[in-house]
């Protein structure tokens, strides 16, 4: 079904076309970008079970441009389309046209990644999706070193992924394997192949100690892009673990579950305690991501079905709330010119909508029961415990407690307390901004109450 291909190609093509608009255009590109993202959302729903495939290579191994969602990637792709639509709608950066084009290309490349049913296509889009972010960091970032760090770390991961993909293809004979139940690889090479994949995935997630690219990247990117990157791009690694690690190399995920779990647990606590003392609002969220993704890694490592179901919910939940958090923090930064927790305070009085949006997102992030984050955490840990891992559960619970501390601190330091005199308060969320954040928040509530579709793996 060609629609599937269109889902991938349309955003990229649209991104290229947007360059044809006048250089200083803002509204048309923003509107068109949002429309395209919404269209991909609709197309995704329409093409949920569809697939599209055409042969690419037949030697040294079979490869195909094979696209189609898997039960897991469907939700991540929907999340991506939603986040992109929301983020693009309120983009207000310099050179808006170029930025929106980049955002669409980012969406397209990531859709390609998540819709890929072929390992080689997966690897292709894996590297490809770095490029828009690199340009985002170059063109709009805060510090040049950030772009390097992002690129070098992720590209290093991309290279091991490449090597592993090549080795997989050579040994298995085909890379057209994602989403196929019968494709397992075993043998002397398989652990090394798994190691190559795992390194890439761990960098991307990121997981301690490969995470140091992430805080500056999340801090430096303009918030529309970082909301998409943190919400979806970081999930590529986790999706990789689920769709490649567990599906194609299950023996080795199981065999090396303990180290993975240790890394996940370290990330979980490490991210949490560092988030506790960060004074840059975006960095708080960045380190909280490290912590949250550590939990998902624990879920993946446990290999338990319930934990995996929970991981899918949490992947979506984390995407929703981190996107919402970064968007709201972005609005805040646009208004106040700073995002330092030390300089801001007391914004809640004059900006109830801003405060409310931040509040819901932060509560979801700290796992408040009734919101999506809680569902994910709970089901993951139920599964992990059921799989017989006790200490990771305890670590995760400690992490949840610390999460409540840093998220509450984030919210309170910005919104509560006496108003700070030297930072001007420049108005509450506009209706457009509210409209842009609302779907994310609504989704958080809906998933928090009724996660059933996400749990059907």
């Amino acid at each position, binding site marked *: 079904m060609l629609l599937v291909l269109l889902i991938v190609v349309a955003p990229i093509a649209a991104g290229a076309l947007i*360059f044809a608009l006048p250089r200083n255009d803002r509204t048309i590109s923003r509107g068109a970008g949002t429309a395209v993202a919404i269209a991909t959302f609709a197309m995704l729903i329409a093409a949920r079970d569809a697939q599209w495939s055409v042969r*690419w*290579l037949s*030697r*040294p*191994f079979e490869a195909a*441009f094979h696209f189609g969602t898997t039960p897991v990637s469907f939700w991540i792709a929907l999340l991506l389309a939603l986040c992109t639509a929301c983020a693009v709608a309120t983009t207000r950066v310099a050179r808006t046209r170029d930025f929106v084009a980049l955002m669409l290309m980012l969406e397209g490349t990531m859709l390609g990644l998540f819709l890929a049913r072929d390992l*080689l296509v997966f*690897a*292709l*889009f894996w*590297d*490809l999706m*770095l*490029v828009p972010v*690199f*340009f985002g960091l*170059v*063109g709009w970032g805060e510090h*040049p070193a950030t*772009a*390097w760090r992002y*690129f*070098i770390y992720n*590209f*290093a991961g*991309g*290279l*091991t992924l*490449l*090597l592993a*993909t*090549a*080795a997989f*293809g*050579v040994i298995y004979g085909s890379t057209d394997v994602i989403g196929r139940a019968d494709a397992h690889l075993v043998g002397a090479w398989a652990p090394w192949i798994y190691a190559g994949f795992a390194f890439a995935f761990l960098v991307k997630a990121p997981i301690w100690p490969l995470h140091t690219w992430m805080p500056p990247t999340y801090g430096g990117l303009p918030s529309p892009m970082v909301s998409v990157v943190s919400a979806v791009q970081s999930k590529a690694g986790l999706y990789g673990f689920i769709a490649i690690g567990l599906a194609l190399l299950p023996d080795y995920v199981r065999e090396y579950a303990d180290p993975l779990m240790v890394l996940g647990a370290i990330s979980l606590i490490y991210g949490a305690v560092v988030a506790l003392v960060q004074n840059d609002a975006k960095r708080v969220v960045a380190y909280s991501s490290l912590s949250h993704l550590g939990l998902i890694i624990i879920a993946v490592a446990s290999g338990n079905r319930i934990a995996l179901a929970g991981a899918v919910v949490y992947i979506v939940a984390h995407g929703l709330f981190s996107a919402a958090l970064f968007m709201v923090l972005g609005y805040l930064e646009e208004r106040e010119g700073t995002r330092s927790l030390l300089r801001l305070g007391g914004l809640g009085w004059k900006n109830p909508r801003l405060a409310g949006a931040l509040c819901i997102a932060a509560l979801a992030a700290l796992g408040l029961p009734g919101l999506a984050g809680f569902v994910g955490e709970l089901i993951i840990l139920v599964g992990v415990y059921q799989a017989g891992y006790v200490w990771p559960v305890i670590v995760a619970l400690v992490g949840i407690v610390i999460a409540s501390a840093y998220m509450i601190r984030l919210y309170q330091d910005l919104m509560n307390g006496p108003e700070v005199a030297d930072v001007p308060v420049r108005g509450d969320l506009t209706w457009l901004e509210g409209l842009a954040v609302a779907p994310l928040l609504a989704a958080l509530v809906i998933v928090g109450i009724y996660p059933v579709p996400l749990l059907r793996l």
Partner: protein
Amino acid sequence: MTLPFTGADWSAILPVSAIAVTALAVLIADLFSGRNDQRYVSIAIALLGTIVGGILAARQFGQHHDAFFGGYVVGGFTTVFQEIIVIATLGSLVLYGALGPAQRIAGMTAIMLWSACGAMLMAAAANLMMIFLGLELLSLGLYALCGAVDRRASRESALKYLILSSTATGFLIFGSALLFGATGSIRLADFVNPVLAMNPLFWLGAGMFLIGLVFKLSLVPFHTWTPDVFQGAPLPVTAFMSVATKAGALAVFARFIYAALPADAVQGLLLPVWIVAGISMIAGNVGMLAQHDLKRLLGYSGVAQIGYILVALAGGTPLGLRYALYYLAAYAFMNLGAFAVAAAISGDGEEGADLENYRGLARRRPWLAAAMTVFLLALAGLPPTAGFLGKILILASSVSAGYLWLAALLIIGTAISLYAYAKVIRLMYETSEGARQALEPFVPLAWASAAICAVLVVAMTFYPLTPSNVLPLVR
């Protein structure tokens, strides 16, 4: 006395002859054309003749004939390499426009065509004599081309290239002599003899022969000339050299290892080459790190890229050759494209390759910057370019051949290279104040070349042409 050759022999050398004659036509036409239009007349004739040569060469694809007693082998292998050389020639000829109006280019054009003939002869050569002559025809032309422009750097590059290349050629001839001494024959086909695998003279001869080749391939430590010559030589010449020389030398190398080596000797004989290929992948990419001149940077880049290609050959598997060819073709397009952009930027050809000129290019000439980005991404091996697929194929080949350490070095080298390429990309998209404001002139030929190369570099990813019947024709 009747000549012992049939029509098939003569038609075998038709493509090369066509291009050689075109060179004469360029020189003759130059005598009759005025001062203002001479460059376009030269380029037009040369392009036309090269295209004809390319078409003639393409018609030989699928044939197989050992012409001139094995001196000139017609076949798929030859054709693919010759086509790549033709493409390199075309891609370089169009850049002559960038040399500035004062330069008389007829002589240069003719010499480049003859050099191309030399490279094509190397691609077809199946005896030591033809290899040597092809190499010398190519090299002599390049000595002259490097120094053809009245600039210090140009003269200097010619001198360095002359001395170093001649030294290396000395090794090659000495090696050829030893091979001849060990076998009593100059035909590569006669080398496939198990007895020779145990002959030390053969090994030494092959070793010294390979020294001459790896010099042309500019692998570390035989690469020292590359950056200097790339930087100093006129831009079209650098472009030509970066692809055609390497294609020719690679053809010889591939034919040597696939068709000439006794099977038992392959592993041990070629080990030094794989080692220097491995070193090249690291050192070449490291060398790019702190460069300020695009041509020089691409010189180092080429050192590493050839290393990648050799990794594909390392297994000695039939598929490895195909992947090497694929990557070579891709490399041809990305390199020619990059040089086309460089030509469009430097305009009058006066030291225009300084990377400072690329600062903020995306604001002034977004399409040029986009094309350059594609080429740099391809060189770095990032999708959606042929460089990405090429690397995958090379990795697959080396993994299946068991040369995992080469694959690992390739990965490390690529990681290093990324920084250097990304630095240029970042420079182009930077928005700082220091960037120059003047708009680069519109150079139709260079732009067209860049556009075609960019499209091809991307298209090759999705529609990879790996000719399936190359290998049977090597022997």
